[in-house]
């Protein structure tokens, strides 16, 4: 709505018939369809998820198979739709397989961060006092550390593996989620239904998880969506800097790193992975924009 002043004059919410569980979900999906950014974003993300899941079936070649014939002529052809890289590996196959890694690592790291961050944020916002002070300060310290430099130092020391990347992304993103959840919790804990829960003797854990967290989910979901997109960017950047997933498994950032020096001769080798990663992040961010719009309207 454009002006809140008119909210009063709009009709009361019409009494709707109770919806079943399935229909409630259908209604939510219907809402996604009402926002164009959400629809496009969801479409892009879904397409990449499908590509990742089906990669073993639809990729024309194994991701690391080299073709001597193609090394000489790596440009797109009937045999290699997107061409090959400088080692003669099929780009399309590597991009599809690359989607698999990035779509495992990025969401896992987000889930980890959401889990850890929610717990910290809930505890800090609900208990306040010294617990809040310690958690908030710890988060501030982690957040004040420039992330990319932190990754460089940690990954350079511990070596880069999918697990290490997930762990580092989880640890560095959790404070952001914790901050969001803490802010929401501080607001929600003053709600009367929380007081009502206390009055019937609920445990703090129940109050945090059943009374507060469900009502923080809207902003949290939007943020997780954005966060996944950012994680894809960071994973790409790490690959590009040479501290990403270890070779030879395909990693979009790494593919660009290996080939962008040859841009003046074979630009397609860097362009296609760049297009892949960009489209995936655009998908996540459009979805987040759309979800926020829907959230505002509902």
């Amino acid at each position: 709505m454009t002006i809140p002043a008119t909210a009063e004059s709009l009709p009361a919410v019409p009494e709707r018939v109770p919806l079943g569980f399935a229909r409630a979900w259908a209604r939510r999906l219907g809402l996604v369809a009402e926002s164009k950014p959400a629809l496009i974003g969801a479409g892009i993300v879904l397409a990449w998820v499908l590509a990742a899941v089906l990669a073993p079936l639809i990729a024309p070649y194994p991701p690391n198979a080299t073709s001597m014939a193609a090394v000489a002529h790596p440009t797109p052809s009937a045999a290699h739709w997107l061409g090959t890289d400088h080692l003669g590996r099929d780009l399309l196959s590597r991009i599809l397989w690359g989607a698999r890694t990035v779509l495992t690592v990025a969401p896992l790291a987000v889930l980890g961060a959401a889990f850890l961050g929610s717990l910290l944020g809930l505890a800090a916002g609900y208990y306040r006092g010294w617990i809040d002070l310690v958690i908030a300060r710890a988060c501030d310290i982690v957040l004040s550390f420039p992330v990319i430099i932190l990754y460089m130092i940690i990954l350079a020391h511990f070596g880069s593996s999918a697990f290490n990347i997930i762990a580092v992304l989880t640890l560095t993103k959790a404070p952001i989620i914790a901050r969001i959840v803490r802010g929401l919790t501080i607001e929600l804990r003053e709600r009367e239904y929380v007081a009502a829960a206390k009055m019937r003797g609920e445990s703090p854990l129940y109050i945090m998880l059943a009374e507060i967290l469900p009502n923080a989910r809207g902003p949290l979901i939007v943020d997780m969506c954005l966060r996944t997109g950012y994680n894809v960017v960071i994973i790409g950047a790490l690959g590009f800097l040479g501290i990403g997933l270890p070779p030879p498994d395909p990693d979009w950032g790494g593919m660009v790193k290996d080939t962008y020096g040859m841009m003046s001769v074979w630009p397609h080798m860097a362009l296609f992975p760049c297009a892949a990663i960009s489209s995936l992040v655009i998908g996540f961010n459009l979805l987040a924009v759309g979800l926020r719009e829907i959230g505002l309207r509902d």
Partner: protein
Amino acid sequence: MTLPADSGRVALTVARFALKHVAFLLLTLLVVSFLVFTLNEFSPGDVARKVLGAYATQEQVDILTRDLGLDRPVLVRYVEFLGKLTRGDLGTSTRFKVPVKDIIWGRLGNTAFLAALAFACIVPLSMLLGIVAGMRESSALDRAILLFSTVVASVPEFALGVFLASVFVVALGWLPGTATMVAGGGWSVGSQLILPVAVIVLFDAGYVVSMIRASMIEVMQRPYIRTAILKGMAFRRVVVRHALRNAMINPITVILLQINYLISGVVVVETVFAYPGFGRMMLEAALFKDIALVEVGALVAVGVAVLTQIAGDLAYMLLDPRIRT
């Protein structure tokens, strides 16, 4: 409530604010330096090994480890390290084989230069786009700006670099593909800077625009905007006089935090364009396990981060009279 008492209270608030933040800055620096320092403990032998190379005998490695004092307890070495730092002795880079202070300030200067250029573009650009988009939510212009900012903020810096380079360097040949800060190959330093700055500005402004836009939308829905319009003011005047300052209150901290990103986060752009900056130096140092350089670099980066945070909080206080008292 007389005015002198008021200003006295403001002064007190500011003093308390300064004290609190300086304390936090010191605490953060201490924690970070200790963390980075102990990180190296996980692979102490590596340092000597790196220096001596793969063909040195274990004996030689041990001797160097002892010579460097790396076999003593970490806490002792940490305190020693802090003592040296306070005396201005930053140590020697094992990677570049020069004292740390000889390399770090030059690189930091290069990056600061790039950052200043980018920041000078980002702020006016994103303010303009964000305000214009947010003042009329869901107008055609707003949708266009929203789409643009979302898309450019989504494309990773290296991909943006590749895209721009493929057009302006490879296809058109208008600009150089590297920015080594040494005029050569017929390209001036100025022309070298265009692409790196463009990549940083596009990537970062996209994010800042969406922040300002969101804040502006919220402000435009406030009753005091209605008050201003119903005073009979022209829309443009309402936006400039009543909405602008309110809309900048929340994003100002974010905007200033971009300085942090511009100093420490542009390693990717520096790598794409072979720019001799701070980030790339840190990357090399980290990969080479150049402890002295990593250590000091991390402190510098964190110092910049905390200082921008303080600047952000101060700017917030200046814009919003409500938290001054």
